[in-house]
């Protein structure tokens, strides 16, 4: 589309993105507090790249995905798509932009309208964006179904006649309909069986190669993210805590939170033993996050400075950034994986 911008490797960039959900209370229903779902997150995604975004439930990863698509209005910050700040876009401009960025949802049962046929669901983006002739739409929908591995006779069926994996493929076909550049996969495979997960992930990776897609892959499943991502970002309580190319992050995590997450991964070899860095306590409330480092309440390496001063993201090794005062100095507890027997 816009040739002039295609020189820059960055497709989309969020700068200091903040999303607070106000909580209303009192007699006059004034905002009394806010859930800080997203607090000052800056992240960019390159063309053709898959950026994994991981974190616990409620850490803000879904909010981030929706905010950069403008499905949620951020409280402050900027989002640049091909160098242009899309937060200033009018409703009409945003609608045009929708062709270029799409989303795949977690729940394949609520993301498809139960009262519509597959032809209507997958054809709707085309219809909204000007493909008015029904025959042409259906031909394109049939092609899309083929691309995601469904048969053309599925066109007239309703969503409840499909399995979870098939429904997710329909979601993928809908996202592909407008030939987008960016697809946000919001826990796109989390609701599926493991064997189906693999199918859908392979489909997504094949499509990426075929259509030169850029993915923001949001998931809480670290092994899936490792498999698909070029780079991985870790979020905790609305903050970005670590960002690195996938191999670096999985082999040398710097942030103690990332270290704890990785040590919780099950190992496929039952003879392997390792010490888990078990996190104590719950995630603090995002309404009233802890001062200083947000992770200090659960961090095994906590020091005084962590309680007072918020650590900033800094580059520890090239392209590997982490937000920890002691990044690079503390070792993951799983350092000495020992074979038993």
């Amino acid at each position: 589309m816009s040739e002039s911008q295609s020189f820059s490797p960055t497709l989309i960039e969020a700068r200091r993105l903040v999303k607070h959900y106000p909580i209303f209370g009192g007699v006059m229903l004034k905002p009394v507090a806010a859930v800080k779902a997203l607090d000052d997150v800056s992240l960019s995604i390159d063309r053709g790249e898959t950026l994994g975004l991981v974190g616990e439930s409620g850490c803000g990863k879904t909010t981030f995905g929706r905010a950069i698509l403008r499905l949620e209005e951020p409280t402050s910050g900027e989002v640049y798509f091909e160098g242009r700040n899309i937060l200033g876009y009018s409703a009409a401009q945003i609608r045009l932009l929708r062709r270029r960025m799409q989303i795949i949802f977690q729940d394949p049962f609520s993301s498809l309208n139960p009262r519509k046929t597959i032809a209507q669901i997958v054809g709707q983006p085309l219809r909204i964006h000007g493909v008015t002739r029904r025959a042409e739409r259906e031909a394109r929908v049939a092609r899309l179904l083929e691309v995601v591995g469904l048969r053309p006779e599925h066109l007239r069926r309703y969503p409840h006649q499909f399995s979870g994996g098939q429904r997710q493929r329909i979601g993928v076909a809908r996202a592909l309909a407008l030939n987008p550049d960016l697809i946000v996969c919001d826990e796109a495979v989390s609701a599926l069986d493991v064997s189906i997960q693999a199918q859908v992930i392979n489909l997504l990776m094949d499509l990426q190669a075929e259509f030169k897609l850029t993915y923001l892959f949001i998931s809480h499943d670290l092994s899936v993210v490792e498999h698909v991502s070029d780079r991985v970002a870790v979020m905790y309580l609305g903050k970005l805590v670590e960002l690195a190319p996938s191999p670096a992050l999985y082999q040398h995590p710097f942030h103690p939170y990332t270290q704890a997450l990785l040590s919780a991964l099950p190992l496929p070899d039952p003879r392997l033993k390792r010490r888990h860095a078990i996190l104590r306590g719950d995630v603090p409330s995002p309404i009233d996050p802890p001062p200083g480092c947000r992770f200090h309440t659960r961090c095994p390496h906590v020091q005084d400075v962590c309680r007072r001063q918020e650590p900033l993201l800094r580059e520890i090794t090239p392209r590997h950034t982490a937000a920890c005062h002691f990044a690079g100095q503390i070792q993951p507890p799983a350092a000495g994986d020992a074979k038993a027997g």
Partner: protein
Amino acid sequence: MTVEAVLGSPEIRHPLLEQLSQLWRNKTAVAGLVIVILFIGAALLAPWISPHDPIETSLYDQLQPPAWAEGGSTRHILGTDDLGRDILSRIIWGARVSLLVAVVSVSLAFVVGTLIGSLAGYYKGTLDNVTMRVMDIILSFPYILLAIVVVAYLGPNLRNAMIAIGITYVPRFARIVRGSVLEESEKDYVLAARSIGAGNLRIVFLEILPNCLGPLIVQTTLSFASAVLDAAALSFLGLGAQPPTPEWGAMIAHSRSLILRASWVMTFPGIAILLAVLGFNLLGDGLRDALDPRLRD
């Protein structure tokens, strides 16, 4: 192509039709459906099936008892009233009036209520608060009292009775639709529609509303029952159909003074009202069971 071949395949049906097919298993609902069909059939076919002119008076046939009673004749199966009009014919033509009132008033309430409810449920906030408080105000009056006030203001005739009943039924539609829309608008398919660039109105009316049809159909059917009843009540009070229009409520009102002398004049219109209301209620309950499992008792 194969696409065409599958079109006629019976396994692929709209989900709503699939749910509706459960209605056949429910005997009371089928009974209700039969009564409703009889009622609608009588209303539509009145000019052809009624044995006499409903408003033609006959001084020779005053207060004839029904055919099976002593002194009755098969000429007037349900007897005649004090002006010699055939009661069966008046009841058949009365079905026409009741159906007309029910269709017009419920349609009015359906359209206005659905519009208010869906916009309130989708946009929430101030619009929701203001419209729903207005609905609460309307609901806080007894239906019939409110209808009487409206008719008294507009003037007593059938058209105004329909408007009055329609207005009093708006809140129930608005509330049901609002509730369903609130629930549906949280689902991901709504976000999906937005993400492909659908506008708000398209989302409300083409994405969300089709998913709220179940409760709406139930409410519509049940409202038909109360509309028939309320139309009869207004006409009984002289605020609806005016003489000599054959209307069930008006027929009862007209024959009140005859109850001891000629009880049939009042009884048969009463039974007609009872059956029509019962039929719509049974059908409505059956639809509720088929379409909206959550509402089951």
